[in-house]
């Protein structure tokens, strides 16, 4: 017998699917698990350690056994629980974690060797000989371990993220959740109802119950229809709320396209839900009972069996037995009988157990063993030490129910043991604020109680928000209690599984106890209990109880386990969401990007920016050729570079000068209007933070620049100074980085070139000297700002125009300057020229540098209280002798390599004789050899000395001469002419 009558499947349509290459059929409404069971397939996988045959154990997301690789190719999805995989046309699934066919796994030899693989065995061996660990033992272990295999191909599907806000989030669409959602939604508040299943109803779909005068699924359909009609309620189906985070933020994954052959748009969406109140109505998970060989395919949770029979009309065997320690198991038996399934035995350790229907009852008995190599065939029943074997293809095990309180303990709140419920219940305090637990998750396990409790929880949650809601009329429902009488395990010599996936048995727990691994965390870590993909949902409480029995303590004395996100495993792709390729992070383009691209520029990522690195011309075969040309053309004629990426901050207000005086180590208030000054900014700990320029456009108006990399942090730092340190100053800040396209125009012909674009502006050295600045117009009336500053050491200007004109201005400058040798240059040439000039940049300003090291110690004014000034007076900073020097190879053919370490000649090269390192290096077409900058101990007094640059990483060592860092125009005549 496989398919029964009834069920919530659409028999009018047939879906074809395959498992391990074998074709089967099912119907819409099936899961892969229900369809396999309906086809009589019991063996679906292998366990982690012993490779024991495993079947379908549960009917929901707690499944520990029935893990498959779903789909194939790049979409292959290992470790997928067959119990939550919705059937679709063409579904392919394969079993995992075996060598050879599933029915004859070569690694099943591990099961024979299991005595050697007791808990923690690997900590005690594989230590000799030492080299064998990486070479032999570990590779062997790694190959045998793991579960499913990844495709190793990029995930081809798209993923999405989004943000939702609501007054009430209801997690779980079973009896309690539906009642809560109805109550709240009718009051008009904004409600989100999230359910992990593809069909609302929860256990209501899995029972044969009536609600009022109708079958439960009919009531569910009616409630759902009402909910769908309410505009203030949103149903998220196939959505798992996986984590409770701070302040009412919940993470949820909607499986948008997982039930389709291929997703129509995205496969999954990550929702971040911000909710004022939350009702957790996640139901309960049934416990099993460990007994000898309790892990064979066909042995499953009794409640799951009931669900398969009612919801999916699937029963995987003709003869079914039930092992239960409570009344709930008898319900399963009665339901099966009513469905026409042959129940061969109901085994109940209670001597006074009563049958609920027509089936053989073995009261006062326990299951003590099973048979069946790849699937259950026989069950051994023992009463008063007298065993009998009976035939059964399926054994339903009912050990009571554990509330699904996981999310309630995501804030590290500890669940509390309830003697009355014989289960852990959510603690009254310590859970996520605003969250209430309702229904079976709160121990309110009967249908009647769940409905009432859900509605009442919603009413109370809304009352808490100051909103009154009426309790809805709820249908009459069953209030049959399960009567939990836990039987934590059946004693015996053979192995009895507690954690199926990780093969943790009662024996392992005993061994942990024997070896003093008794605290629950030691128990878990020593045995790997609860570390499987079901996160211990089916194992942890049982294991605690077994340990409690061994220590003679109560369960709460033994410990509790708390839960952390995620509630069920979540795909990496959906957590990563969005774009992972070129749009992984924003890309900022400079104003002249289009022009540069049209010129064939090569671009480079500089933080978020894409900058032109160099502009190759036909015939140039190496980047060096191009860069040398750009440098020489700039130094001989004029070069143009887009420097928009530098941060720009508008500083205004009566106290702008006083404010900048406190931000920069050097004075700024004394700067004259129309002039620019280099500024050195320290962190409060005295190290160099950033550098840039301050231009004073008016008495109460400065424009300051920052380095490209530090634009954001420096702006934040400035706001900190303004708002937190000196709020009394009248100063206003706003970033204008993107508003202005800024171009460096550098070289002896810079002035002549600019004269061709400015509108009647006197650029003569007298009218507009070095470090002058002014507003002006260019190209027939375009607003612009001009700064006479130089990074290259040449006569140079920076010209800024509104960003939308940047592209055209770049083209114009190159065009009108053709006869002057106007040459666009990129970041490489920029870097070469600043090294030639000895200007510090990112490699020098790495946060570990002092003003003294940069030769700027004297700029730190002692006459004012600027950020960082005081801390430069610490002994260690004063004693710093490393200083920026220029470095040139003794043999001009030798390279200079940034990252090489500096040593005196003839000393042993180790950490303790290390005297510094090369920060930046390049080939200087001006000098005609490689050059570099570096920090060298006592550097300022060692000019002319020959030192060694050691680069053992690349097996090179070169002799360098220490020189001034100013390779070009050390007197600075060029930039002042």
């Amino acid at each position, binding site marked *: 017998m496989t398919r029964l009558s009834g069920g919530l499947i659409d028999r009018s349509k047939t879906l074809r699917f395959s498992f391990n290459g074998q074709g089967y059929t099912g119907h819409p409404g099936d899961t892969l698990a229900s369809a396999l069971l309906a086809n009589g397939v019991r063996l679906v996988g292998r366990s982690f350690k012993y490779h024991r045959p495993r079947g379908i154990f549960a009917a929901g997301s707690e499944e520990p056994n029935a893990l498959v690789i779903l789909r194939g190719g790049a979409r292959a999805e290992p470790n997928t629980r067959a119990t939550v995989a919705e059937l679709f046309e063409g579904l392919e699934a394969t079993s995992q974690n075996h060598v050879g066919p599933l029915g004859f796994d070569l690694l099943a030899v591990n099961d024979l060797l299991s005595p050697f693989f007791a808990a923690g065995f690997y900590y005690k061996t594989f230590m000799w000989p030492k080299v064998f660990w990486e070479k032999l033992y570990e590779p062997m272990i790694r190959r045998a371990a793991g579960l499913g295999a990844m495709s190793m191909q990029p995930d081809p599907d798209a993923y999405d993220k989004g943000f939702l806000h609501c007054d009430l989030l209801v997690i779980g669409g079973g009896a309690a959740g539906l009642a809560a959602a109805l109550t709240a939604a009718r009051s008009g508040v904004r409600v989100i109802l999230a359910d992990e299943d593809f069909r609302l109803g929860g256990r209501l779909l899995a029972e044969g119950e009536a609600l009022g005068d109708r079958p439960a699924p009919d009531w569910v359909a009616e409630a759902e229809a009402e909910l769908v009609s309410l505009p203030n309620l949103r149903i998220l189906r196939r959505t798992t709320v996986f984590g409770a985070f701070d302040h009412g933020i919940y993470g949820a994954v909607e499986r948008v396209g997982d039930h389709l052959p291929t997703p129509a748009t995205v496969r999954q969406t990550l929702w971040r839900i911000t909710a004022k109140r939350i009702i957790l109505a996640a139901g309960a998970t049934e416990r099993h009972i460990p007994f000898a060989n309790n892990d064979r395919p066909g042995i499953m949770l009794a409640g799951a069996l009931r669900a398969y029979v009612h919801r999916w009309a699937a029963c995987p065997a003709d003869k079914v037995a039930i092992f239960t320690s409570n009344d709930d198991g008898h319900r399963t038996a009665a339901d099966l009988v009513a469905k026409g399934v042959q129940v061969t035995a109901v085994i109940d350790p209670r001597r006074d157990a009563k049958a609920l229907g027509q089936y053989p009852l073995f009261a006062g008995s326990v299951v003590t063993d099973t048979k069946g190599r790849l699937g259950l065939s026989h069950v051994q029943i023992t009463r008063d030490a007298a065993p009998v074997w009976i035939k059964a293809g399926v054994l339903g095990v009912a050990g009571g129910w554990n509330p699904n309180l996981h999310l309630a303990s995501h804030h590290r709140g500890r669940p509390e043991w309830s003697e009355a419920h014989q289960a852990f219940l959510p603690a009254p305090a310590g859970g996520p604020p605003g969250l209430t637990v309702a229904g079976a998750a709160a121990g309110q396990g009967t249908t009647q109680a769940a409905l009432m409790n859900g509605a009442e929880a919603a009413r109370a949650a809304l009352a808490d928000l100051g909103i009154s809601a009426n309790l809805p009329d709820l249908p009459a429902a069953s209030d049959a209690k399960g009567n939990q009488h836990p039987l934590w395990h059946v004693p015996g010599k053979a192995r009895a599984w507690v954690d199926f996936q990780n093969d943790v048995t009662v024996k392992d727990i005993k061994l942990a106890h024997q070896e003093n691994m008794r605290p629950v965390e030691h128990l878990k870590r020593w045995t790997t209990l609860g570390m499987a993909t079901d996160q211990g949902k089916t194992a942890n409480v049982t294991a605690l109880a077994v340990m409690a029995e061994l220590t003679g303590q109560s369960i709460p004395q033994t410990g509790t386990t708390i839960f952390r996100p995620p509630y069920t495993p979540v795909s990496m792709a959906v957590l990563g969401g969005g774009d992972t390729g070129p749009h992984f992070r924003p890309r900022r383009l400079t104003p002249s990007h289009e022009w540069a691209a049209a010129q064939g520029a090569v671009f480079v990522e500089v933080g978020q920016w894409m900058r032109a690195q160099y502009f190759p011309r036909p015939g140039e075969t190496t980047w060096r050729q191009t860069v040398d040309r750009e440098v020489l053309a700039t130094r001989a004629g004029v070069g143009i570079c887009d420097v928009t990426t530098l941060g720009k901050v508008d500083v205004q207000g009566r106290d702008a000068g006083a404010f900048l005086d406190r931000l920069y180590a050097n004075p700024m208030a004394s700067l004259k209007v129309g002039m620019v000054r280099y500024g050195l900014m320290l962190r409060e700990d005295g190290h160099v933070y950033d550098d840039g320029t301050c231009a004073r456009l008016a008495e109460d108006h400065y424009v300051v620049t920052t380095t490209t990399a530090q634009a954001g942090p420096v702006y934040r730092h400035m706001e900190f100074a303004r708002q937190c340190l000196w709020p009394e100053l009248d100063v206003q800040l706003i970033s204008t980085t993107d508003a202005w396209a800024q171009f460096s125009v550098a070289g002896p012909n810079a002035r002549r070139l600019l004269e061709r674009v400015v509108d009647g502006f006197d650029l003569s050295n007298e009218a507009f000297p070095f470090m002058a600045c002014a507003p002006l117009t260019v190209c027939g009336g375009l607003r612009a700002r001009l700064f006479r500053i130089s990074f290259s050491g040449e006569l140079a200007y920076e010209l800024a125009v509104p960003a939308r004109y940047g592209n055209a201005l770049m083209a114009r400058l190159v065009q009108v300057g053709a006869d002057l040798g106007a040459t666009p240059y990129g970041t490489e040439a920029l870097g070469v020229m600043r090294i030639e000039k000895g200007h510090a940049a990112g490699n020098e300003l790495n946060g570990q540098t002092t003003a003294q090291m940069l030769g700027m110690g004297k700029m730190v004014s002692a006459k004012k209280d600027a950020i960082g000034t005081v801390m430069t007076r610490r002994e260690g900073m004063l004693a710093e002798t490393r200083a920026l020097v220029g470095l040139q190879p003794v043999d001009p053919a030798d390279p200079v390599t940034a990252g090489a370490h500096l040593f005196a000649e003839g000393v042993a090269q180790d950490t303790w004789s290390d005297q510094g390192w*090369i920060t930046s290096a390049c080939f200087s077409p001006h000098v005609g050899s490689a050059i570099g900058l570096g920090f060298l101990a006592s550097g300022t007094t060692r000019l002319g000395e020959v030192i060694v640059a050691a680069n053992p990483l690349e097996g090179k060592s070169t002799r360098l001469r220490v020189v001034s860092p100013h390779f070009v125009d050390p007197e600075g005549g060029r930039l002042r002419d």
Partner: protein
Amino acid sequence: MRFSGFRVIAEALTGHKGWKPLWRNPDPQPAYDYVIVGGGGHGLATAYYLAKTFRQARIAVLEKGWLGSGNIGRNTTIIRSNYLLPGNEPFYEFSMKLWEGLEQEFNFNAMVSQRGILNLIHTDGQRDAYRRRGNAMLLAGADAELLNRDQVREMAPYLNFDNARFPIKGGLVQRRAGTARHDGVAWGYARGADIHGVDLIQNCEVTGFRIENGRVLGVETSRGYIGAGKVGVAVAGSSSRVMAMAGMRLPIESHVLQAFVSEGLKPLIPGVITFGAGHFYVSQSDKGGLVFGGDIDGYNSYAQRGNLPVIEDVAEGGMALMPMIGRARLLRTWGGIMDMSMDGTPIIDKTPVEGLFLNAGWCYGGFKATPASGYAFAHLLATGQTHDTTRFMRLDRFERGHVIDEKGMGAQPNLH
């Protein structure tokens, strides 16, 4: 009891009846020569080396919870010595050398696995910085290799080479780096310390110090007063709280660092890979789970749990670096409390209170440091002299202006 393969076989054949407790559960004595506060990795290692190497007797480790419940119980298990500055690199290399003989020394398989670490390079500036670092490593006696893009591709072909926002331009590799089974390290040290007579006392919370005339006499605990000749505090994550009981303020903030494990998977990555452009690093455990992490959450916290933005950020980084992991699932997350120091470097030093010693400020580098930290702290406790490799890790370095700032972030702990 000595552990070995033969022993495992013998016990298997005789029903595992012979296995003994890994350590005793002693009641605290009234006084010890040395009291180590904190039964995490560093505290256990300190006790182990004090007893075994420095041959000191009468030692107790006091642990508030269960042994190994500190950050050794929740980390991403990476061991490496790829630091830059002389204040750090020789220390971590010393630690690396101790790792290399650790299991044979304490007769416990902590699964020290030297499968290498690869730090990816995305820019020329980064290559310069990594070259400086790689050279610093070699100069300190460690190993390092600089790889170009093709070599990285050969090593890790599944990384995103063709469609990345931050193209991979190379990498710095330390082959001797790798991972170790974190709990195994704690248990190995605990068992070793127990064998050498150390009293490991669980569920014993230190509630105060008894200090007279500037000298520590003992500690008040939840299990009564315990006298001590010397007290060593190794309670990373709680350093500020514990030292406040001795009247000290520290250059430390407590921050939460989350870490993550995926479901078990067949082997896909051999070693450790770090992706600086996207805040992501990953390795794969022997059980098959991808173990990964990223940045700290960034705000002061003692809550041992983090928030969703960091989970997303780490997953984004992972997806950008290795788009093949999309269909792997995140299984577990946890949050550990980091002792974030003001320069990102730890402190192993005496304190102004005589007889009271501090081991703190490990940021997220504590696990790899466990052996050397224990050794150096034991050295300091036993001899009164700073171990050579920790000579810069002083408490007064901040006021003296000798910070050891690997990242160059200054006095902002959440940026280290």
